[in-house]
């Protein structure tokens, strides 16, 4: 096989080629760095505020977004069961409401360092049978609601 890499196409070779043609490297004429800076993922969002302040901020954001929540259990102030009405058109263009459920939980990582975790908790459609297929559900409505909530918290904080 004659398949090979063309030497003159390698960046160092080209820079040398341009140099011989009187074009020196400069700030504006140097390789752009597109190194894929490692994207650091972590669960939920972090907070160093006082726990009760975090929880009240979450309730305030939920209220601003028009979400509903179940009264918390007396022995657990740190879990909030949320229901959010997401309206969007179906294939026929009719607006369809789906009740998306989410569980928000506050964890303590260490002294003065808390983590708010958002967990998808299915859809609550009136009279719908229990989820038949738990392996083909679209995470996008959940991701969208989580995004709205995080933006609301970011704005209000």
């Amino acid at each position: 096989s004659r398949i090979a890499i063309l030497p003159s196409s390698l960046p160092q070779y080209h820079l040398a080629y341009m140099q011989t043609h009187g074009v020196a490297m400069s700030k504006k004429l140097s390789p752009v760095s597109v190194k894929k800076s490692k994207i650091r993922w972590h669960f939920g969002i972090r907070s160093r505020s006082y726990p009760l302040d975090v929880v009240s901020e979450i309730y305030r954001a939920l209220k601003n977004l028009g979400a509903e929540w179940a009264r918390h259990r007396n022995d657990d102030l740190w879990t909030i069961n949320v229901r959010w009405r997401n309206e969007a058109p179906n294939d026929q263009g009719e607006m369809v409401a789906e009740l998306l459920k989410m569980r928000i939980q506050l964890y303590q990582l260490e002294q003065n360092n808390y983590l708010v975790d958002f967990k998808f908790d299915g859809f609550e459609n009136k009279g719908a049978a229990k989820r038949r297929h738990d392996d083909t559900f679209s995470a996008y409505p959940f991701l969208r609601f989580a995004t709205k909530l995080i933006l609301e918290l970011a704005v209000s904080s």
Partner: protein
Amino acid sequence: ALQSIREFLQSKTSYDVLPVSFKIVMLDTKLTLKGTLLTLLQNGIISAPLWDSNQSRFAGLLSSQDFMNVAQYLIDRPEKAEEINTITLDQLAEIESTIGARQIETSRIHPFKSLYETCQHIVESKAHRVPLIDTDPETGREIVVSVLTQYRVLRFVALNCKETQDLKIPIKDLNLATRENLHTATMDTQLADVVGAFSKYGVSCVPIVDENNKLLNVYEAYDVMTLIKGNGFSDFSLSIGKALMRRPQDFEGVITCSEHDSVAHIMETIRRSRVLRLCMVDEEGKLLGLVTLVDILNYIMFG
């Protein structure tokens, strides 16, 4: 060999090509072009499916071609260069219709359709990739599972079909390469003219030759995206030679082949390394033609 490879493609689904664990990057249509570009480059990708959060649905497959169309739009309207910071993805359709360019791709296929059927979509589509979309039975919402590209299909075939080693006919006898109407440039060609070729003819690469038609390099749509990241839409008066100086250091080089090479050789190269296309040159290194992945896929499917 071709027959058995086609049977293989008919016997597998697109889902079979997916690894056990994989990621899919979705872009909200409210993202600006600048935010989109930085996100794509940060993930090392040049294409991604769009999500319309208001409609809660898939909104098309963004590809480098769309960026070329925006670049052409801004080259024609230098006074609007700053708009890259404000134009959002849901305004793309309007921009592309203004310059008469092909609209953003919206074709899709179900992940459990046969790989053969998916390849038909890939060959016909603008960016030679197709989103795999399922529907959530409970909410009717779309699930964008993944995007299958021609490279990933060819690599899957190269890794799983030993018959590819029997495709020994030299490519010159298969009439496989694109030889006519090749859009080439020289090191002194203005970048704006090359972007024009990307936008107008839908090519994603322009060979760079010297005065004797000897191949020196190629300029790719991806190069334009990294240039925009570095300098915005201001540097289109650059010569190609200077624009190539902006190319990231990790560029792996242009792959060349001869007309005596066979598809078996090419599939072996795809099996071992990341191939986007091959430039066919003669013994003196003069450009004879381009062999793209879609040419290979076309041959395997319909040759």
